[in-house]
C-alpha cells in the first residue's frame, strides 16, 4: 500500500458502489446480486416445471404400460368360458375386474381402480370415463352380444400437473390413461 493511498480519508474514498453506479443502501448487497437472483428464480422455476414434466411423462408411461398389460390379460380372461359353463360362446366378462384390478392398482400411483358401472359400451376415451377430476381409473368389460368382447381401462391417473394447465389431453392433477382391446369370442367345447 502506498503512503498516498493510506492518507486518503475513508469518507472521501470513492466506494466500489459509486464507481459501478450501484446502490449501497442494502447491507451486504453486491452489484449484480439482483440480476443473479432474478436469473436464479427464472431458471429454478423452469427447472422445476421441466422436472415435473419429466416425472409426469415417466409416470404416464408406467401407468399406461400397466393398463396395456391389464387389458391384454383381461381379454384372456374374458375369452375364457365362465365357470360352470362347459360350452360357451360368450366370454366371462364378470371375471375381468377381479382378475386385473390388483395388478393395475399396484402400478397406479395415488389412483383408485374401480369397475365401470355405466350402461352400454365401454367409454371411448379417458375424458368420457372421467369427465371431471382425476385420480380414478375404470375397468370396463362388455360382451356386445354380437360375438365380440371389449376390455377397456380408462380414466385420469393422479399426477403433478399444476392447476390451470390443460394441454394435449392432460388436466390439472390428472394424466389420461386409455387402453382398449376388442376381439371376437371363440366357441369352446371341452
Amino acid at each position, binding site marked *: 500500500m502506498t503512503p498516498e493511498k493510506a492518507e486518503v480519508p475513508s469518507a472521501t474514498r470513492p466506494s466500489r458502489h459509486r464507481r459501478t453506479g450501484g446502490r449501497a443502501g442494502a447491507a451486504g448487497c453486491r452489484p449484480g446480486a439482483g440480476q443473479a437472483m432474478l436469473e436464479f428464480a427464472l431458471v429454478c422455476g423452469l*427447472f422445476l416445471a421441466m422436472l415435473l414434466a419429466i416425472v409426469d*411423462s415417466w409416470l404416464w408411461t408406467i401407468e399406461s404400460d400397466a393398463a396395456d398389460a391389464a387389458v391384454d390379460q383381461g381379454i384372456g380372461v374374458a375369452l375364457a368360458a365362465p365357470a360352470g359353463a362347459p360350452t360357451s360362446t360368450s366370454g366371462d366378462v364378470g371375471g375381468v375386474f377381479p382378475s386385473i384390478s390388483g395388478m393395475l392398482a399396484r402400478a397406479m400411483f395415488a389412483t383408485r381402480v374401480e369397475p365401470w358401472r355405466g350402461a352400454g359400451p365401454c367409454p371411448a376415451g379417458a375424458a368420457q370415463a372421467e369427465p371431471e377430476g382425476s385420480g380414478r381409473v375404470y375397468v370396463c368389460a362388455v360382451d356386445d352380444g354380437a360375438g365380440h368382447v371389449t376390455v377397456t381401462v380408462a380414466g385420469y391417473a393422479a399426477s403433478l400437473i399444476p392447476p390451470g394447465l390443460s394441454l394435449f389431453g392432460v388436466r390439472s392433477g390428472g394424466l389420461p390413461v*386409455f387402453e382398449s382391446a376388442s376381439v371376437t369370442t371363440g366357441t369352446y367345447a371341452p
Partner: protein
Amino acid sequence: MALVIPLMFLITIGFVGVMLEMRAESELRTAVDLAAQAAIVPPLGDVGASIADYRYAFEHTLNPSGTESAYLTVPGAISCSGPYLEGRLSLTVEGTLAPVTCSASVVLDFARSPIGVLWPGSVQMSATARVQPSLYRTCLEQTAGIGGPCTPGSG
C-alpha cells in the same frame, strides 16, 4: 442462461419423446399379439373367420381414440401367415406345430404430439408376434379320425 434454458428444454422434450415412443411400441406390440391370438381362435379350415378375427382384433386394439394412438398412423393392414391360415397343420423341425406369424408396422407422427414443437418428424416401428395353434382348442372332433384335416403333416 442462454445455454441452460434451451438445454433443459431439449432434455425435457427428448425425454417425453422417448416415453411416447416406448408407449407407441407397447401399444403396437399388444395389438399384434392379440391379433395373432385371435387368428387361431376359429377352427382349422375356417380361413375367412381367422382373417376377419385377426383384423378385427388389431383394428380395435390400436384404437385411434387412445391417448398415444392419436399420434399413430397405420400405413398398411396387418398381415398374418402360417399353415393354420391355409387350413392345414404342419410340424416344425423341433416337432411342434408350425406357428402363425403376424406382423404390422405403424408410423409415429411427432408433429401431432408435444414433441412437434421441437422436432416434427416421424418414426416408423414394426412388431411381430408368433402363436402356436392348439390341437385341443381347434381339432378336438377331427382328431378322432386319423388322416383328417387336424392331423399334422411334416414340414
